[in-house]
């Protein structure tokens, strides 16, 4: 038993300065049109929350349901930071699999302020996300910088390697009408951009964006009734948390767990996220045709490539240099252009990843099309310990 994707919809990413709900509703309407399903036939709507847009953002399910026109549909809203979209997909899918509904709509959208993400306002010394800014000035890119420097020390990677990730992703993004950044960039431009969090420069780090994405999910029986042949199937959704002790320093923490009393788990958190998805889908990394991974920074894409098992630890740079992860390569990574081309619209991003998986698997990815794509993996992680991975097959 699994669920199928009947429709995808996206509002182009950017910094358009409109209320987030407009992006979400535009994406939802497109997904419904794509699915050939009327909004009034949708039985369940899940909204992935945004915490930067006031109360309507905290109750995104209701916000979208009202904006689409109250229809009596059941709703849910969920928040899991960058993993909110995957959680929303999982909530919809489990309700369908439980037989409580046949067709569900999943929507995520965000409108972001300019510059660094900062904690939500007020004086909140009990909130580690507030404290890390107050005591250390540790922004999100600071953590990305730590990971990047660690790769350089462990594997001998260079700023040129990281720039090559941006070059690759910007080329793919230049072919994606939904992407915010549509210009292919050169390594020289990346290396000349201002330093932000050493060793990462401005063009190594993903921007924060406005955007919206939506999916119509359904039971296979519902799809058959609509006459849909051979739809994309959601084979797994992994929303696992870390296993104690988590020995990688994670946003927004001040420290890792201690391995003084309990040895570290077999798989670090990011690897465990993908592993759980593979187990659920009954496949392995060797079966993956392409992957969308969370390239919050260029260097982090290389971490993810190893964590999802496309190569051994330390080998991702080699894959990159061989062109394996580029469009046309052995296993393209971020064929959408990734966060490098989109910038992050938090609650929409994991849903957008699944839009790309679906379009690739249906052969509808235009100039970005990966020949013979059968299995797509999307992986992502939300702060405070939220895993997110989706495997789609056809």
């Amino acid at each position, binding site marked *: 038993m699994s669920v199928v994707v009947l429709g995808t919809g996206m509002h182009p990413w950017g910094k358009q300065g409109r209320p987030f709900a407009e992006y979400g509703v535009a994406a939802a309407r497109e997904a419904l049109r794509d699915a050939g399903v009327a909004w009034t036939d949708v039985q369940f709507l899940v909204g992935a929350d945004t915490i930067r847009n006031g109360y309507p953002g905290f109750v995104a399910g209701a916000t979208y349901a009202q904006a689409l026109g109250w229809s009596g549909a059941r709703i849910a809203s969920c928040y899991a930071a960058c993993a909110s979209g995957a959680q929303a997909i999982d909530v919809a899918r489990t309700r369908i699999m439980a037989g409580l509904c046949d067709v569900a709509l999943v929507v995520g959208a965000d409108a972001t302020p300019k*510059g*660094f993400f*900062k*904690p939500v306002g007020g*004086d909140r*010394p009990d909130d580690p996300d*507030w*404290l*890390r*800014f*107050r*005591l*250390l*000035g*540790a*922004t999100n890119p*600071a953590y990305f*910088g*730590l*990971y*990047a*420097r*660690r790769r350089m*020390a*462990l594997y001998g990677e260079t700023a040129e390697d990281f720039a090559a990730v941006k070059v690759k992703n910007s080329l793919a993004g230049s072919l994606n009408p939904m992407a915010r950044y549509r210009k292919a960039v050169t390594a020289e431009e990346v290396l000349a951009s*201002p*330093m*932000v*969090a*050493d*060793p*990462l420069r401005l063009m190594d780090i993903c921007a924060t964006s406005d955007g919206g994405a939506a999916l119509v999910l359904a039971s296979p029986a519902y799809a058959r009734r609509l006459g849909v042949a051979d739809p994309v199937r959601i084979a797994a959704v992994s929303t696992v948390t870390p296993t*104690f*002790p988590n*020995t990688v*320093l994670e946003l927004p*923490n*001040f*420290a*890792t*767990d*201690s*391995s*003084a*009393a*309990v040895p570290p788990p077999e798989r670090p958190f990011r690897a465990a996220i993908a592993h759980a998805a593979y187990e659920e889908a009954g496949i392995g990394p060797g079966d993956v045709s392409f992957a969308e991974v969370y390239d919050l920074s260029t260097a982090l894409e290389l971490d993810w490539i190893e964590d999802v098992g496309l190569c051994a630890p330390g080998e991702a740079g080699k894959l990159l240099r061989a062109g394996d992860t580029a469009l046309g390569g052995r296993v393209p990574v971020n064929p959408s252009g990734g966060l490098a081309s989109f910038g992050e619209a938090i609650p929409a991003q994991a849903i957008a990843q699944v839009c790309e998986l679906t379009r690739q698997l249906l052969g509808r990815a235009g100039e970005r099309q990966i020949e013979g794509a059968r299995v797509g993996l999307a992986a992502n992680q939300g702060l405070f310990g939220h895993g997110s991975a989706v495997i789609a097959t056809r």
Partner: protein
Amino acid sequence: MSLAIDGWFAIEQDGTHLIGTRCAACGTVCFPPQRGFCRNPHCDGESMEQTRLPRRGRVWSYTSASYPPPEPFVAAEPYTPVTLAAVELAGAGIVVLGQVKDLTVDELEVGMEVELTHGPLADGPLVWMWGRAS
């Protein structure tokens, strides 16, 4: 001399110490200090004892903030880039993040030994910092 946060570190004659907790039942160490329940999922411990964490460790990784971080951080004017290091504490199996005092990224290396010290935030209160090992 006010501390930017109470109970996380102490400045004493023999140097600056991070204050963590150790579970009386299983020995799991936590920083920042935890109250109540042990974070080891196999442990029922509810007694967390304050413990001084090792003052020395090796750099796990490091970075810098070239642009002034946003509020609630108070940036000095003119702004000098903050250096941050994540340091693996000797024998405690834990990595702790902190600002770095008087060392730039060009002077740091992964694996280098550092020692805990303290220094002021731009608006005055003191915070723990990693410094050159004595």
